[in-house]
């Protein structure tokens, strides 16, 4: 089998645990072979929020948790030659790289070679109209005037190139999540960019790592039915991949969580549509013949990924301003809580019917019916005899003023609504909406640059 490559999946989203990397770094430093630590921290809207932050401050716009992810493990990674690949660059990979460089300087460790991958930003490359013409599955952009962010999903090639140039750390913006693993694998094994089955295996390895603990017992536990030991200290995934694309998923010794057939299959199919055609920039991954085999405690071998030639077009996510979401809540508890909560909802509905007839809003009864139901707030389901009911009202508008009337009416229930109303909370959150576009490859211009000497 020869050499193996080891990759730890240290984060699965922007808000993930910042201490998850520790046990992975410990395990990787003992591994015999090229080792990498990957951070996936860039959900669809995260990048748009970062873009807004960069407009306010050109030195920011990267993942705000970057310091907390990197600081605890940077020194150990540099001394143990564990190379870090992360999309925490978000809207400003260069600024993130400079920040990491500053952290290295503060810690007195050797200056790392940090590669910056750019070229995912489509603003200034395609106009709103040109993006709208390429939108798939919707018409959000047809009426949009201004774009907050438009980013292509780049593939693994610039990441592999950065590692070929000797980068200790690769900082990217928008790349397809699984490329954070495929890039290191292509670099380490010199896989050809038309060796589709291997690219597919590397993509599957990345897909299994990209959500962190979701493959090691996170997002899995259902006590009494699907138990997970030590969930509070669940280990994050550690993948071993061989030159033929064989994958073993495990986790660091001494951590909680579980890795078995059940946890791995749930993650194989996570956010998948047609399992025979999972499209990423470098390959089309076909999961039809994938098998999993438990080879030991918390160790699962995953085999059989097949690849087909890379798609002609690349996906882009385009975010536009979507106004605000207004929410207000109030609680009723004890005898006839249901009756009083129902009356409160009717009071708000009656008052707004005459005072703000155009304001569309939704009412949920948390603890009774707030998640599965979808009757637009009509509250038709039987409420039963719940004795602790929290009403939640929500509405959207272009501006905060558009939803203020609803929030004010909920707050006024304090003195003028049914008896015992308590615990009002109200807030207005800005919203972004995102659209997907399919973009011709000629618009993708990935660039790799290296930041070396301290600025």
């Amino acid at each position, binding site marked *: 089998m020869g050499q193996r490559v080891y990759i730890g999946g240290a984060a699965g989203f922007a808000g993930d645990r910042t201490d998850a990397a520790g046990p992975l770094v410990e395990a990787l430093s003992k591994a015999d072979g090229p080792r990498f630590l990957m951070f996936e921290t860039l959900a669809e809207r995260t990048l748009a929020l970062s873009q807004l932050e960069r407009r306010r401050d050109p030195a920011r716009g990267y993942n705000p948790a970057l310091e907390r992810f990197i600081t605890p493990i940077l020194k150990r990674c540099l001394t143990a030659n564990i190379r870090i690949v992360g999309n925490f660059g978000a809207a400003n990979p260069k600024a993130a790289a400079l920040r990491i460089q500053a952290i290295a300087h503060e810690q007195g460790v050797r200056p790392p070679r940090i590669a910056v991958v750019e070229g995912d930003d489509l603003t200034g490359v395609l106009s709103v109209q040109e993006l709208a013409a390429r939108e798939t599955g919707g018409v959000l952009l047809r009426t949009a005037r201004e774009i907050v962010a438009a980013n292509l999903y780049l593939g693994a090639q610039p990441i592999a190139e950065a590692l070929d140039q000797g980068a200790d750390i690769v900082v990217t913006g928008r790349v397809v999540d699984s490329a954070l693993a495929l890039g290191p694998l292509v670099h380490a094994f010199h896989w050809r960019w038309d060796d589709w089955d291997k690219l597919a295996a590397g993509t599957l390895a990345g897909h299994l790592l990209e959500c962190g603990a979701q493959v090691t017992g996170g997002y899995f536990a259902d006590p009494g039915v699907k138990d997970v030991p030590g969930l509070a200290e669940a280990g994050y995934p550690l993948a071993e991949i061989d030159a033929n694309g064989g994958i073993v998923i495990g986790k660091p010794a001494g951590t909680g969580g579980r890795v078995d057939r059940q946890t791995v299959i749930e993650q194989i199919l*996570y956010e998948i*549509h047609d399992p025979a055609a999972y499209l990423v920039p470098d390959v089309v991954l076909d999961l039809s013949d994938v098998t999993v085999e438990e080879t030991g405690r918390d160790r699962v071998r995953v085999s059989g990924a097949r690849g087909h030639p890379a798609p002609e077009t690349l996906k882009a996510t385009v975010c536009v301003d979507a106004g605000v979401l207004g929410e207000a809540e109030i609680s009723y508890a004890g005898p006839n809580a249901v009756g009083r909560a129902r009356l409160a909802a009717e009071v708000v509905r009656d008052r707004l019917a005459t005072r703000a007839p155009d304001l569309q809003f939704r009412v949920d009864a948390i603890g009774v019916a707030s998640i599965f139901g979808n009757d637009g707030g009509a509250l038709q389901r039987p409420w039963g005899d719940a004795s602790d009911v929290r009403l939640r009202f929500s509405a959207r508008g272009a501006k905060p003023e558009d939803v203020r009337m609803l929030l004010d009416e909920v707050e006024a229930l304090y003195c003028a609504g049914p008896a015992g109303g308590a615990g009002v909370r109200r807030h207005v959150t800005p919203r972004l909406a995102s659209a997907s576009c399919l973009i011709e490859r000629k618009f993708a211009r990935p660039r790799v640059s290296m930041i070396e000497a301290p600025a």
Partner: protein
Amino acid sequence: MSKVRLRDVVNARAGDKGNRLNLAVVCRDPQSYAAVARALTAEMVAAIFVSRRPAKVVRYDLPKLAAFNFVLDDVLEGGVNSSLGLDGHGKSLSFLLLDAEVEIAATK
């Protein structure tokens, strides 16, 4: 044939892309795959989600994993972009599926 609550025989995990939901369904005992395949049709899943009026439900079969992937179109109130609900991603909806009962043949 007997009525079985899905939660007793399968695992499920929900994921979203826009207004589209996917439900990964994994047979806890791989031996039950054929029986679950007969019982848990796309039509059955459409019926379980009827209150969300799915435009289309497709079932993809993965016999080597003893698993299925259900893709439900237009069930997320417009998706996280526009839903007024608490769970715009539909992440809780795996348990709406698991609560359903199906007629299933005994595996042994």
